[in-house]
């Protein structure tokens, strides 16, 4: 998928959780949201983007995405 769309989505999520005063909770919030609502191919692509420097991602989004567990080749692949 067009990576900039995924970057925008991740950043939008991070802007909500930035209000969380506890930084670890904020990271968990972004991470949990992406894990629960994003299709594996989207998670894989944003994780690869973050691993390559994560251009355009907010700091919080980059930190959360970098903690995404590896996407196993799901049956949907």
């Amino acid at each position: 998928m067009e990576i900039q769309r995924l970057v925008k989505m991740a950043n939008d999520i991070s802007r909500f959780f930035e209000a969380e005063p506890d930084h670890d909770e904020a990271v968990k919030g972004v991470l949990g949201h992406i894990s629960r609502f994003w299709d594996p191919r989207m998670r894989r692509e944003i994780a690869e983007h973050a691993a390559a420097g994560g251009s355009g991602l907010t700091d919080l989004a980059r930190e959360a995405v970098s903690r995404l567990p590896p996407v196993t080749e799901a049956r949907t692949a």
Partner: protein
Amino acid sequence: MGIRYIDLGTPVRTSEREVTLEIDGTQVTVPEGTSIMRAAAEAGFSIPKLCATDSLEPFGSCRLCLVEIEGRKGFPASCTTPVAEGLVVRTQSSALAKIRRNVMELYISDHPLDCLTCSANGNCELQDMAGVVGLREVRYGYEGANHLDSPKDTSNPYFTFDPSKCIVCSRCVRACEETQGTFALTIDGRGFGSVVSAGQNEDFMDSECVSCGACVQACPTATLMEKSVIEKGQAERSVVTTCAYCGVGCSFRAEMQGTEVVRMVPNKDGHANHGHSCVKGRFAIGYATHKDRITQPMIRASIHDPWKQVTWDEAIAHAASEFRRIQAEHGRGAVGGITSSRCTNEETYLVQKLVRAAFGNNNVDTCARVCHSPTGYGLKTTLGESAGTQAFDSVEKSDVIMVIGANPTDGHPVFGSRMKRRLREGAKLIVIDPRTIDLVRSPHVSASYHLKLRPGTNVAVVNALAHVVMTEGLWNESFVEARCDGHAFAKWRDFIVDPQNSPEALESETGVPAEQIRGAARLFATGGNAAIYYGLGVTEHSQGSTMVMGIANLAMATGNIGREGVGVNPLRGQNNVQGSCDMGSFPHELPGYRHVSDQITRQLFEGEWSVRLEPEPGLRIPNMLDAALDGSFRGIYIEGEDIAQSDPDTQHVTAALEAMECVVVQDIFLNETAKYAHVFLPGATFLEKNGTFTNAERRISPVRKVMPPLCGKEDWEVTQMLSNALGYPMNYSHPSEIMDEIARLTPTFAGVSYDKLERLGSLQWPCNAEAPEGTPTMHVHEFVRGKGNFVVTRYVPTEERTSRKYPLILTTGRILSQYNVGAQTRRTPNVVWHDEDRLEIHPSDAEVRGVRDGDWVGVRSRAGETVLRAVITERVQPGVVYTTFHFPESGANVITTDNSDWATNCPEYKVTAVQVEPVTQPSEWQKRFRSFSDEQLALLARQESQEA
């Protein structure tokens, strides 16, 4: 079921005290406040009447319902005389008979004697009463002054007004006032000269009449009569079913002659509407038999090929083989499906089951993605359940009503009338909306506060309201302590009391004077039972989910949850938004809002469905479209949705559809999406199938087949055929079996069955062992999630900003006479009220651009450009323009952007920066749209001519 039902004369009364009296020698016990007429009717004694009907307050004008009461002088009207302990009432005597006969004689002396050719023949209360009182002659003759030559008003497309048949009982006038709340009718003149008048002695079409049909329903003669009855005659039977338009979910009796609908009559026993209706549900059903209906399956290899009409088996086999080919070549996840809020619960359940079990992935989504998905996320997070908290009846106990981003009199008109009735009774109103919606000021209704905020600043406003509540000590401490999570509340309190959330700090951002916010907050927190009703003006924003949680925060902080008269109430756009979400249409949830990663839930479904289920969330609609453009998503099954018209950034949607190899559309018309399809499967209207809809108050209501499907199959049968062709067996013989399966698998539906729906009429979920007859009010003793969860809702301005190039904000909405993408209502006479989408613009914005009322104007955003006709009005504030989206050629979504809610990807329809300028020709997109649409209609016509 017959077409006539018992009218008890006056409305039901409720009281803890009961009164016993004697009527015609029989002891009768009724609640205090009941009329003698109703008490008699409930005991089986029918008192003659004309001006009384049980949907309206008694009026006491016709003088037919007189009775004798022992110890009282004269002959009191039984409709206006309440029962009293120990009364002895006689409903029949020679004196009463003489009076009634004389009264009827006077009525008939000024009434045409054309009963045999009258459209009401056989269903006329005047005719009935003449028989009941034994009228045998009219001594006054017809030579004197009369109204028999009064001209008939046929201006309304759906009903006529024939004053020559009017007995001036005022039922129509009272219905317009009490039931609808429009006050369009009045009695003009005095004495013998009294006549019913629409507006200022205007035709109905020129008056304020909104064609809800309440007056027609109330009329005891043929004075106000449906044109369909005049044309076809009286119906022979009726079937109770549920309206297929908005989220109110009104119950109707479809009155039938054979398999033809004569008229739709609102069901007095309907729990959502209590006998009221709007112009759409009551009259706009002509689309069901419109010539544009497609009733034969069709296929084609390319969207530029002519359609080929095929058998059901051929169409289904072709679709199934294409889906399997795509999956074999591009992976199991390369296909998916979309369900619709216009389809029944059973149909949406089957589509998501097909996707999960037959496709083997979770790539299923529903049109709630683009309307109320933030409601699901926000209310689940804060309260624990993805649904509104109240029944519609709850509004009758509200003291303060806050309406945010909703326009109930247009979007949910029957509930809007209920709300207006409560406001006329004295409840206070707070409206939060950029536009001056009708509710702000209508007859006998005036908002205490209209917070006319700038589009996109909802969260700032709700935070400011909560800030006032908390900093001025107006919060409900005992409720919060007892019912809510203390840690979450403390964190939220620290956030909300910060001065950055004060009305003063946010005034420049929201455009709402701080004092207005403070006043509204004080009223909401201290005015008694306070309820919040909201619509798409809340959800369709980049912070839609945040705003829903902000609303829940406000309700919890003020203790306005868990009883009648309060609550958080999403007004759902389409009839089955709630139901389609309940049925597991989202890619991350199985039915009952349980995440696909939950192993216990998955195992439950795997056991029932005999298939292994994917534990990862699937693609949402916008993700599917993005994936189509990158080549990883190539086939889609769309039941009842029109994403090419309804979804944002039209060019993006159509490009994605064009990129797919197999688009299967199941619909009643060749809609905009079907023009990009390779397989067309004809659908059935709500009149042609069985099932259930679930409305905005979680009410599950039956949809009953009143005529055979024009295409030969109900929609659930088509999905079942497709599933079987894909190799996943489905063997239902009736939708009731699908509901039985839903009940087995979904705890909130455990007690739902067709038998129970037949017995009780409707049910509000949760319906289970703890609540066998349903749950009108949720979260009564505790929240579904246990403790209420306050969530920090920081205001984040949308990225869609005005600039010198795009200085205005466009926001969108609906109009009363049209419905969403208009596929249904555009094919009815409702177009007389609204035959094109127009752009509302403030006079000052119009003047600086040289725009005059009615001019064509180009509306250009960062996403695209379209051309609409301008309407200059102060309903919108300076800097804001507004349009509806009912006509595809308007291209409203050509200009909306791809911004979306952070949590759910619900599009930000409500905020688009635009420029407006006079133009003389359609936009480039509109030219391309017309060209493509013409090509598609020609390809359809070529197929039809080949068949001929």
